[in-house]
């Protein structure tokens, strides 16, 4: 279970004169739930967007599922895009399509499955993420925030991706909803054998579902490892993160 799925090496990112990353390194292994942590503006989401080829770093190399992103061909990148699912922070559901159409769009575009089977798969995925069946025919504008996230997750999962990217999956959810979402991700990993990369601020998620994570700060990855390894890390930024009241209360309660 220790095959590396994503390898980020010496990434440098600049927006104008603003340097976001200056030599960031990390690696994600097969089958784990990997967290990206850091304060606002530390470049977590930027790094995630670079992994999914929405942004390109100024230098350095990212390889995903064995493909080097800086030299990837059009066909390979098309295959790669089919093999991952992405959940955006705000859901990013297509507002002109219903939930069922949103979830099924990749199957309709990329496979020759009969429509009936696609509809069945879509309904199964909608059940899987815990949406009521009546939600299938609604438009994104008619959904609540939590339902949008679930629908977007169903869309990300529809092709049974090997890799799932989550950008702050639990932000904007109430604690009950957030916990249910965390459990859902755990269960889905079990069913679908996923590797999950998530950007998160949620200390509860970090404690309960993340296997390993990286803490971003000072334009680098300042710590990487399991929770127990990182909590011992003397770095001031890491201490700040886990030493605050929320962190202390959480660590007293244990895992």
């Amino acid at each position: 279970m220790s095959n590396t799925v994503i390898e980020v090496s010496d990434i440098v990112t600049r927006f104008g004169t603003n340097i976001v990353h200056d030599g960031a390194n990390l690696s994600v292994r097969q089958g784990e739930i990997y967290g990206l942590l850091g304060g606002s503006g530390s470049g977590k989401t930027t790094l995630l967007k670079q992994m999914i080829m929405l942004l390109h770093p100024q230098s350095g190399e990212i390889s995903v599922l064995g493909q080097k992103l800086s030299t990837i061909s059009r066909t390979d990148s098309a295959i790669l895009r089919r093999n991952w699912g992405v959940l955006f922070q705000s859901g990013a559901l297509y507002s002109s399509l219903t939930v069922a159409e949103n979830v099924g769009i990749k199957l309709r575009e990329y496979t020759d499955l009969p429509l009936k089977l696609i509809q069945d798969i879509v309904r199964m995925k909608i059940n899987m993420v815990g949406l009521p069946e009546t939600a299938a025919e609604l438009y994104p504008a008619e959904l609540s925030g939590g339902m949008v996230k679930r629908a977007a997750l169903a869309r990300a999962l529809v092709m049974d991706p090997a890799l799932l990217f989550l950008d702050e999956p639990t932000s904007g959810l109430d604690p009950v909803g957030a916990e249910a979402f965390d459990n859902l991700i755990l269960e889905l990993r079990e069913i679908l054998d996923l590797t999950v990369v998530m950007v998160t601020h949620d200390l509860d998620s970090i404690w309960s579902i993340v296997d390993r994570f990286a803490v971003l700060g000072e334009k680098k990855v300042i710590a990487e490892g399991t929770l127990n390894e990182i909590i011992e890390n003397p770095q001031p930024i890491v201490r700040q993160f886990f030493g605050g009241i929320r962190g202390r209360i959480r660590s007293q309660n244990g895992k």
Partner: protein
Amino acid sequence: MHTTYSHKAQLKVLKTPDATIVFKSSGNWTNNALVDANMILDQFCRTHHNVTIHWDMSNVENIDSAGVMLFINYYDLLKLNHCNIKVIGAKSEHEKMYRLLRKYTSKDTRKPADFYSVFLKPLDSIGKSSVAFILDITSFLAFVGENFVHLLYSLLHPRSIRFGAIVKNIEEAGLRAIPIVALTSFLIGVVIAYQGAVQLEKFGANIFIVDMIGISITRELSPLITAIVVAGRTGSSYTAQLGVMKLTEEIDAMRTMGFEPHRFLVLPRILALMISLPLLIFFADIIGIAAGMLISHLHLHISFTEFIHRLQSVLDIKHVWIGICKGPFFAWLIAAIGCYRGFQVSKSTESIGRYTTISVVNAIFLVIACDALFSVLLTELGI
């Protein structure tokens, strides 16, 4: 059995002597490789009832949720057809996946559309859109009313008028529209002069081109054309601006801080356009007449001096004033519709596009309708 690629999902139907049927499945039962297996199963289900089947899954290499779904579908269908099915040799991880996914499948609850709903659908949609139309008009009137209240308040408390915003909007809607208005009215002047010149030349009534251009441009064409350009340019941008502010909850934020959107956003826009449009119309008058003058000179050999001399004697000042006075009315229509539609934008991004289109179409239609009303009224009044 036809040959398929080894990695595709395959299913061989074998008959054994004791009347049981064996499904030998193999290959990858994944979402991009299921078509053949689906076809074979579909055919089998159409023709077989009441049989005993042994479904051998031992050679299946990979299976994903699409594959499991296909299996579940046909498993259930065959059961419905009173078949006796035994699944043999499934790998433990495939079986685990099946069990986990099984609990998320559900019965198809969608009902086919019945005859009456198909038949009544047109009537239904006519009714719905009529009601929507009436509601739309009432809510527009409510918007206008609210706006009027804020206008009265502003007039009673002149210090609350947002002069900065008005000036900024005049720059945006008036000053920056000058190039496009100039170009459009120049071309309109050229068109009118050309069309008129051809007709008038036949009668040798060349000099009457001045009357024609002078009156038609100032009284009708330049107000109308300028208003249409402004509706397309400014009306749409008002809708889009307010729509985006509504989407990003800026308008709600303003309300909670006690900044009335009508006072801060709508009134400055309406007042700015009511000030700029008459000025733009006057500007368009000049450009349009100048274009007509140029064409008359080139085509009918009427010198500039002659043209201007004639213009002074035939073009009553009232025509210019009528044209300019239409400006504030048109401007009010365009800006009020633009802002009103902007406030109607709801959650989805798609609705910005829809309401922007509606806003421009409404504004242009109402401007033309209003112009027609002016024509009738002024003619009846003998002006």
